[in-house]
């Protein structure tokens, strides 16, 4: 039988994760203001415009506002504050 040896684990320290609750949902989107956040990836603006059109046709009482962060991949506190202050919900796409 081959000798057994002990070696170090090569990984770093993962941060502790604290559970967080989701925001309370609205019963429907009728009459609500929903921000459509364009994440600035290639062609995402075209996709989000199509999504806006879909909502206009299918839920006309729902108001949609397209909004973009200042930069891709970087948090934009001003944009986030605007969504929180004025929006009832948000759809983000397409990308991380």
């Amino acid at each position, binding site marked *: 039988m081959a000798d057994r040896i*002990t070696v170090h684990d090569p990984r770093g320290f993962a941060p502790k994760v604290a*559970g*967080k*609750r*989701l925001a309370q949902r609205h019963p429907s989107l009728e009459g609500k203001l929903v921000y459509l956040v364009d994440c600035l990836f*290639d062609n995402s603006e075209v996709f989000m415009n199509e999504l806006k059109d*879909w909502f206009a046709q299918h839920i006309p009482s729902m108001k949609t506002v397209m909004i973009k962060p200042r930069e891709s991949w970087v948090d934009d506190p001003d944009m986030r504050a605007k969504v929180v202050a004025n929006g009832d919900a948000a759809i983000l796409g397409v*990308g991380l």
Partner: protein
Amino acid sequence: MGLALELEKAGIPSIAIHTHVFARLAKSVATANGMPTARQAFVPQPLVDKSPADLRAYIEGVDPISKRPFMQEIIEGLTSALNDNDLKGMSFERSNPRFLEADTEDNLRELFEQNFWTDFLPIILPTEERVNAMLKGTSHPRDEIVGRLSPTAFREDWEFNVEQVAINAVMAGAKPEYLPVLLAMASSGVTAKSSSTTSFAGIGVINGPIRNEIGMNCGIGATGPYSHANATIGRAWNLLSQNLQGGSTPGDTYMGTLGNPLSYGFVFAENEEASPWEPMHVRYGFKPTDSTVTVFRGGRYMSSGFGPREHWEDKMLRCLTAADARQSPLVIMDPIVARLYVDKGYDTRQKLVDWMAANAKLPAREYWNEMWVQTLIHPLAVAGVEPYATNLKAKPNELVKVFQAHEINIVVTGGETQGAWRIYEGTRMKNATVSIDAWR
């Protein structure tokens, strides 16, 4: 995903849309943020080059992950009542043991490969004895926290200590005297194993006395595998990046579609003795007698040339303007080339950098059509950030500068067997010229 989670925390019901290849990654990020049930919807990959009609078909079609109508996922994601899991999220700790369970060498090697803890070349198993020997390369205590890394900006940062850097140095086959270099690289906060879909690699340039102290090669074959120090430092930086940041596993913590051969390791030293210019790290506020490492991300494009020959300007500008406009050039040149530039009046490195920045231009229509210029620079231009805002006002055929001087770097290296130069993509990261002396 990160923004959606922030909005949820602020009380705004949110749903993030991704393409289906990111399903595992999106779930992983939500879980690591304590919201594993965060709402997500998926459309087929890709979006790029799809017409509005194609994208409308995605919207009116089926979510390729849930197999339910896409718009049903969206609407229910924002309106369905929350359950217990939604209300409490998920708290957990992930503590890795300092030592793995004892096993045979063959089994341990297999374990390291199964977990993507290697680069699939043979590794030196990090026994306690070997790691203790490695730690003799620094005066810093083994439990001192060195820094934090993550595979990309929207993922959680993992923390690591001196011992964990040493473990990865052992795995790469590095010697104890290289450890200060690796600690400096690890402390930079710049990963060599980004998860970017675009597959960039890490590039490191060493300056100062440490080059000669540890036997780095900056002569013949300077950027190739012709020195134990160059080879193992480059490899170790990649191994420590993936293992200390929480992984580099395809489909989860690595999404680079093409991958990058430079990810096996690309660290080299400047040939300061043969260069006619002051060392590169002096540009970043260090003294020539300081030892530093400067870390770049890039390696997705490369072009080469020889000279400067009679019409060198044309060739150099073709190479610079053929580069991806958002991604900075790292020019590597043999000392022969650098001296020929001195003969042409470029008696400082900065003068040549300034010439490149002033003359590398593209028609505005071509510049603004580049994907990353559209994605990353256009929003800044719209926000009024210069020089992008001015470039945005240019007429379609008007020439605009592709790079700013501070984005261009030149390194002199090589063994003077040929007047060769290359341009690699190499974006110097913010504050990423790091003292090695601080980690001795």
